[in-house]
């Protein structure tokens, strides 16, 4: 576990001096991070060790033994092997990847267009900005519920499409057809999180120094030209931050998906989180789930250790 390994970090290279001022500072620093480190220890380190332990057994609560006696059912890495050779698990990872990529790229394109729109002046812009943010304030479980209502075969979305469509009666099987169900899950995520993309990208556009925009303007550059040569290149770090944060969250998708489709029909819209939940609580395969969770966490740790860097850069650049 990356989290565990990195805890012993000795970047604190301050020379050992007998001076009370420096020592007091160091001591205070240590004391101040102590509660946080304790929290990490208790609520991450311990559960993770426990999860590793369980994943090496075939223990299940339905077996009647307490979890700490799980060593009686020791199996070494068979759960892991089962996981990485399981077509279902690999398909779910792939599916989650597809959902993440599709949703985040759609959110990015829409969010960017909206940000460009909102970078210019028009009446009531401030009020509109506030309203634009409402979807992301909707509790994710609620948005799952609301879209469940909207996307019924005879629900309002199909009704609206029927009104707009010249042919008349549109009846898309949003939640029933496997492909459409996947699209529906993506749709909810896009609806809910495009405002976040929009907001981050807008602040990126507005952060391009006015003087630089003016300098280009005086040199005769059109708005389009400035967008291409100044705004987008300068926004690169922010774009990266937005994509990373959104991908991180999209990969964890559970609430909305659970309330919308419960991963169905079949497993057509099952994300990793949904799969783990189902396996644990509907199939009681605890040790197997533990192994899958470890695999996912290791994978994410590897990706995350690279992905966090732009966020840190954002913190540093002031």
């Amino acid at each position, binding site marked *: 576990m990356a989290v565990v390994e990195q805890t012993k970090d000795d970047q604190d290279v301050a*020379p050992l*001096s*007998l*001076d*009370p*001022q*420096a020592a*007091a500072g160091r001591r205070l620093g240590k004391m101040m991070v102590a509660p946080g480190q304790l929290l990490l220890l208790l609520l991450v380190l311990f559960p993770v060790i426990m999860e590793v332990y369980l994943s090496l057994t075939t223990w299940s609560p339905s077996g009647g033994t307490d979890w700490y006696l799980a060593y009686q059912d020791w199996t070494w890495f068979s759960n892991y092997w089962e996981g990485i050779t399981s077509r279902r698990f690999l398909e779910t990872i792939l599916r989650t990847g597809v959902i993440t990529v599709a949703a985040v790229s759609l959110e990015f394109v829409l969010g960017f267009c909206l940000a460009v729109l909102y970078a210019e002046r028009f009446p009531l812009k401030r009020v509109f900005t506030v309203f634009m943010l409402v979807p992301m304030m909707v509790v994710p479980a609620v948005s799952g519920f609301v879209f469940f209502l909207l996307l019924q075969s005879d629900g309002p979305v199909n009704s609206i499409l029927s009104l707009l469509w010249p042919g008349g009666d549109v009846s898309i099987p949003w939640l029933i057809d496997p492909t459409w169900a996947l699209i529906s899950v993506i749709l909810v995520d896009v609806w809910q999180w495009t405002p976040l993309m929009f907001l981050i990208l807008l602040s990126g556009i507005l952060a391009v120094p006015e003087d630089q925009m003016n300098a280009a303007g005086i040199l005769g550059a059109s708005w389009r030209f400035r967008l291409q040569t100044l705004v987008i290149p300068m926004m690169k770090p922010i774009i990266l931050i937005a994509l990373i944060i959104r991908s991180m969250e999209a990969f964890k998708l559970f609430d909305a998906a659970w309330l919308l489709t419960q991963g169905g029909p079949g497993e057509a819209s099952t994300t990793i989180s949904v799969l783990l939940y189902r396996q644990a609580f509907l199939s009681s395969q605890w040790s197997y789930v533990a192994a899958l969770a470890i695999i996912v966490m290791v994978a994410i740790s590897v990706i995350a250790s690279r992905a966090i860097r732009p966020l840190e850069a954002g913190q540093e650049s002031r």
Partner: protein
Amino acid sequence: MADITITGVSKKFGDIVALNDLNLHVDDGEFFVILGHPGAGKTTTLRTIVGLEQPDAGVIQIGGQDMSGVMPGERNVGIVFQNLALYPDKTVYDNLAFPLRQKGREVSKQEIDQRVRGAAETLRISALLDRKPGKLSGGERQRVAIGRVMTRAPEVYLLDEPLSALDALLRMEMRSELKRLQHELKRTLIYVTHDQVEAMSMADRICVLVQGAVEQVGTPSEIYDQPRTIDVARAVGSPPMNLLPLTVDRSQGLCLRSTTVLFNGSADQNLSAITDGDLVHLGVRPEDVVIGGDAASCPFTARVMAVEPLGSETIIDLDVQGVIIKGSVLPTAQFAPDESVRWGVRTDRIHLFGADGVSLYTAAGQAHMTAAAP
């Protein structure tokens, strides 16, 4: 007694050497200015004196007492930071009272009130006591920062570029005001600045700091008239001292040449250290450059590059074989760009610096050198 002695202090930040074997003595009650470029180690010096930085090596004594191991709050030293660091959420009154309300300083409410109002009176900010720093002008904020130090009545005041954020007119006012204040308080005051005008006009003594080490310590006139090195020479004076590179020719006594300029030195000068072919720099301040005089005082000719009228004086830029020599003339003098003029220097006011930048010779009122055209 609060004299300050700094002995062999060094401080590194990673690979950057901020202070390099710094030795300094500041007398009790002195207005002491540390002058240097950004990055010369000025601020670090102040921070080590107040105890916010620990020297890697060396000792700091205040009033003869070793300060290592003494907490900043117990050193009886007050500091005004460059960004002032007022407490923005507290009123001026609370800012001034803050140091008195600390544990271990059992000061009665009445006493606090008295001292805050006294300091405010001295600094003429009594009317502002209820305001927050955000609502004050630059000059007022400045006074509050000084006031916060004053209420504690420390033995030593440290000021880090306190006037840098103010505009020119206000800076001029605050300069004389600060000097007056120090006269009244009679406390040791160390003032850090990169502005030579502030250093010259306020200091009892100036310390020129270069790359974390003391280059020269002296009264303003010593620093101005007898700079020990080129760095010191260029640190004070505006425009800075002109420096003309010359080659030494000892074939006939002592001659300094460039292609056309030549100085003759008399044989009695104690300049045995320099030898034939050495490169030296002739230093001359703009006010000691004579332009448009008779052949005796102005043996050379040069082209005028630029004329900069400043009102009380006019600066003339001369092109002397690619080196710009700036001369200060009276505003009534009329020169035009590209004009060819005669020029010379007051040979009783020149300086010579060796290749290592250390002063070899300062005329200091005694004429030993004469200027001559070839």
